[in-house]
């Protein structure tokens, strides 16, 4: 094969581009950073994560905890005493891992956080490049396993949204109702479903692996549906990221009494 020597490598950020190529990576950097900082802070709080029938998605499923939503009772005895306990710490690795290994986010944060490259046709000034061909980034291939957990989380969050319709009346009985918080939880499930079910690995799982669709009409339908969501994967990635954070803010501020959860019905 002919040896190829392209133009010599130039310094970081060198480009002939005239447009604001830096704007998108900077926005992604701040958007993701703000979410990581807030979600880490919220996860370590360990309180004010419920209000009425609502449970913050950062704490769902609540495996162990003090709220009525807890599946297996209060803080387990085996939890190290030196470590602060929060129900969120037990589960947040799963949605975090799903987003961290997501094909969309990978492309976005490689540019914004690693500058690899900073933007299309902009020099990175880096000599060594391994890509996702070797450790550690070869581990991104675990994405489909996080997908399986994320799908299970969708069922849990849908049940949480269903519980958001049931309020405790003055006489202690449960009554059906709709409040702003109910809608917030429902929108959260819709956005998260749009994001999770539009995942590239899910698209592969439901039909992408096939070469002959005509013998599998049901899988063809599923593939087409997932493709519809996959086309908007970036949009749903950001909508769901923002809304899951907002849902925690909503529940937290209602729990603190700063916001009042208005009943619609």
């Amino acid at each position, binding site marked *: 094969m002919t040896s*190829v020597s392209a133009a010599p490598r130039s310094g970081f950020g060198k480009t002939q581009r005239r447009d604001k190529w830096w704007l998108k990576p900077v926005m992604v950097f701040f958007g993701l950073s703000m979410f990581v900082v807030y979600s880490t802070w919220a996860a370590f709080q360990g309180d004010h994560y419920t209000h009425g029938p609502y449970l913050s998605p950062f704490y769902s499923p609540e495996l162990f905890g003090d709220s009525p939503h807890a599946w297996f009772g209060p803080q387990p005895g085996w939890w190290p005493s030196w470590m602060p306990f929060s129900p969120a710490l037990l589960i947040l690795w799963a949605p975090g891992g799903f987003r961290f290994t997501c094909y969309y986010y990978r492309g976005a944060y490689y540019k914004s956080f690693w500058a690899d490259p900073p933007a*299309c046709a902009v020099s990175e000034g*880096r000599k060594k*490049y391994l890509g996702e061909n070797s450790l550690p980034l070869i581990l991104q291939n675990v994405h489909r396993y996080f997908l399986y957990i994320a799908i299970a989380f969708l069922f849990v969050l849908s049940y949480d949204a269903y519980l958001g319709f049931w309020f405790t009346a003055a006489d202690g009985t449960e009554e059906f109702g709709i409040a702003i918080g109910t809608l917030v939880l429902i929108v959260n499930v819709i956005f998260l479903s749009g994001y999770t079910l539009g995942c590239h690995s899910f698209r592969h799982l439901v039909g992408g692996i096939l070469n002959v669709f005509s013998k599998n009409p049901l899988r063809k339908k599923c593939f087409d549906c997932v493709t519809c969501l996959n086309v908007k994967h970036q949009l749903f990635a950001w909508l769901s990221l923002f809304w899951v954070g907002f849902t925690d803010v909503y529940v937290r501020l209602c729990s603190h009494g700063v916001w009042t959860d208005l009943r619609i019905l």
Partner: protein
Amino acid sequence: MTEVTFRLWRGDKSGGEFKDYQTDVTEGMVVLDAIHQVQAESAGDLAVRWNCKAGKCGSCSAEINGNPRLMCMTRCSDIPLDEPVTVQPMKAFPVIRDLVSDVSWNYEVKQRIKPFKPRKPDNADGTWTVHQEDIDRVQEFRKCIECFLCQDVCHVLREHSKHDEFIGPRYFVYTAALEMHPLDTEDRLPEVKEAYGVGYCNITKCCTVVCPEHITITDNAIIPIKERVVDRFYDPLKRLFRKLFAKS
């Protein structure tokens, strides 16, 4: 009519520099028209590759104001003309002269890819029956005009010169078209993982952004191929499943 400065890269593989040329731009002109005008007016020896002037031959690929584009499909009215317009050859390939780069490496890569190997004919007359829904996915990939803008913008080739280990987006599209073809029986996944270097792609989607045929290269070709490689080589449950249910 506006007088515009075109800053064109002049030189060959031994080196070169940008030189400024003024020419009048009128309504409806594309960058290739302006380059031809410069050639006619003040730089008769300017080398530029072109053919169809219709965005279908993929010959006039270059970098216009730093963006990999087809010169014949870039309207002058779509770029700022109040400052010099830079036009340079594709950075990922060696320069032959001026705006012409040597893309022959791509044709050599294509020859390394295992060719189409159809199953036995379905019909007595030696033909196959193919349903439209089976071929829909592959048809998108057939739109490729081999302009190599995706190869040019890919930082694995452009910045890291991994030409010996990575075949680039164009040839993952080509491989995907073969791998997903309903009649094909060849197995290319070991090569996709090793010799073709799919793991080097870090999904920046720059190839999709520059494709003049709007092929969704990353989402529809590269990621599905990556997922097939994961199936075969990285997914422990799938490997176990294959071992347990392998036909002896």
